């Protein structure tokens, strides 16, 4: 167990140290989310009615959740690259804890997700977003955000081990996650969608998590939505972490 912790930290450090040396990745964490925030706020913002909130307040929790969910993309691409370059073989031939390569990778994602969330919050504050709740609630929201991102990192870890090329990881991930984030309350109220989409949009973990964020940051009526979001995140981890680790054990065994 001690070995799992230290090995995980070694791998997480490896993935963070290399980050500033791959500028294109850093761009994905910084410039891209800012660009999307500005586009939504100023291009669509005027056309979208969000009763009870200004669009800036409505948008920021939604766009942050979407961004965090995609943060795990780096994990899918990185693992796929490690697999093809023989690095996974090297790790598997070392006497290290088996899940550490994946656990370290997903842990590094938490740090990068924290970075892009910070950038987005600052951008939000500039364009008119503000916290309407206590510091404790706001921090609770940050915790939920990072947990949700961590859960999706495991989805992407599994994906990265599953598909044969980085390009495939890219398109499969995009096709699977993009509609999920859009058919949710992230950018528009669910009520404004056609009614056939309502059941899906309302059950969507993105909707639940975004609504939980709005209750923690804006004081929107919460109900059980915060716990619902936590349960979703834990359930995703419980399913995808074992799948990813099993895949790790066998994938390189080709």
């Amino acid at each position, binding site marked *: 167990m001690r*070995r799992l912790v230290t090995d995980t930290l070694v791998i997480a450090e490896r993935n963070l*140290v290399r980050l500033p040396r*791959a500028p294109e990745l850093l761009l994905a964490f910084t410039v891209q989310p800012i660009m999307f925030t500005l586009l939504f706020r100023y291009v669509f913002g005027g056309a979208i009615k969000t009763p009870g909130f200004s669009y800036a307040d409505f948008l920021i929790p939604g766009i942050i959740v979407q961004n965090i969910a995609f943060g795990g993309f780096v994990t899918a691409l990185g693992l796929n690259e490690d697999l093809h370059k*023989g690095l996974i073989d*090297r790790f598997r*031939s*070392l*006497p*290290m804890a088996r899940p550490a390569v994946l656990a370290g990778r997903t842990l590094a994602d938490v740090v990068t997700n924290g970075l892009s969330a910070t950038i987005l919050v600052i951008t939000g504050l500039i364009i008119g977003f503000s916290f309407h709740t206590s510091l404790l609630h706001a921090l609770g929201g940050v915790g939920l955000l990072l947990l949700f991102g961590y859960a999706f990192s495991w989805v992407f870890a599994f994906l990265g081990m599953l598909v044969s090329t980085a390009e495939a990881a890219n398109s499969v991930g995009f096709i699977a996650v993009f509609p999920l984030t859009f058919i949710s309350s992230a950018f528009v109220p669910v009520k404004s969608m056609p009614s056939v989409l309502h059941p899906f949009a309302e059950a969507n973990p993105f909707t639940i998590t975004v609504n939980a964020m709005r209750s923690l940051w804006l004081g929107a009526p919460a109900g059980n939505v915060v716990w619902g979001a936590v349960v979703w995140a834990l359930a995703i981890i419980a399913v995808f972490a074992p799948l990813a680790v099993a895949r790790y054990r066998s994938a390189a065994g080709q």
Partner: protein
Amino acid sequence: MPPNAPADADASREREERLRGAAVSASGLVKSYGSVRALAGVDLTVAPGTVLGLLGPNGAGKTTIIRILTTLLKPDAGTARVAGLDVVSDAAQLRERIGLAGQYAAVDENLTGLENLTMVGRLYGESRARAKRRGHELLERFELLDAARRPTKTYSGGMRRRLDLAAALVARPPVLFLDEPTTGLDPRSRLQLWETIEGLVADGTTVLLTTQYLDEADRLASDIAVIDHGRVIAEGTPDELKDRVGGERLEIRLDEASSADAAVVALAPMADEPPSIDGEVVCVGVRRRGGAIVEAVRLLDDAGVGVEDIALRRPTLDDVFLALTGHAAEAAEDDQAAA
């Protein structure tokens, strides 16, 4: 190669002792990928401190053998022990005692040379400080100290291979596995890497290496196992294998192809087996090296056959491969690519 039935109890005991003392021993390894049989029953033994070269074309099963012996892959059948440990049931312990350097230089290109080695050391359970010190030592030994703080994506192919090999040596493993260590390297880097490997063997490391280069096996390996279609089709020292295709050969280039028949008749008294003819080149296996050229020139001169060039040639492992498989190593590679 047919299994040698032990002639008596002594021979059997001797073989058993050899297996027990072996750094690597495998018996009956079988592995299939779907319907493709990669290994069809492989037996191997490597004595401590020696180098076994697995020689064979692409797709022969060499890499699969390495992957099984380094615990990356479980065999469908058969057993193998490395450094006294079973590759399946003692896999976790075994990983402490082996080093693997692959066909693809498995280093993180966004990390520096030192960061790569430090990471590997820490994954062996060393403290950061000790791992770093060991990394320094290895970089110095592999003449990479100048590049220690540069990301490895700036390294040349040869430097990456050396770093990859250094990473395999971090824990001073008694048994080292090298999967095509010099594939794709320029001649100078190849020679450097060969010298490094020879140095490791001189220090007592047991090495199992795969290669498709006959000269590489010839230079580095104390024993060679020739692999084709998932089986060991021959094994022995490089010299033993060469002896199997006969001794030395005279290659005689005649002035005119039309005098080839006369040359064959003239050379009959000194030939080991019927000479072969290819255009104006006549090849003769000879029993004795000493005086062979002089004797051949005299016989041909007496018969009035004009000679343009004559040379004594030792058989190469290419000849061995051709004799064993009926095809040359290179041609076999093309077969695989076409299949």
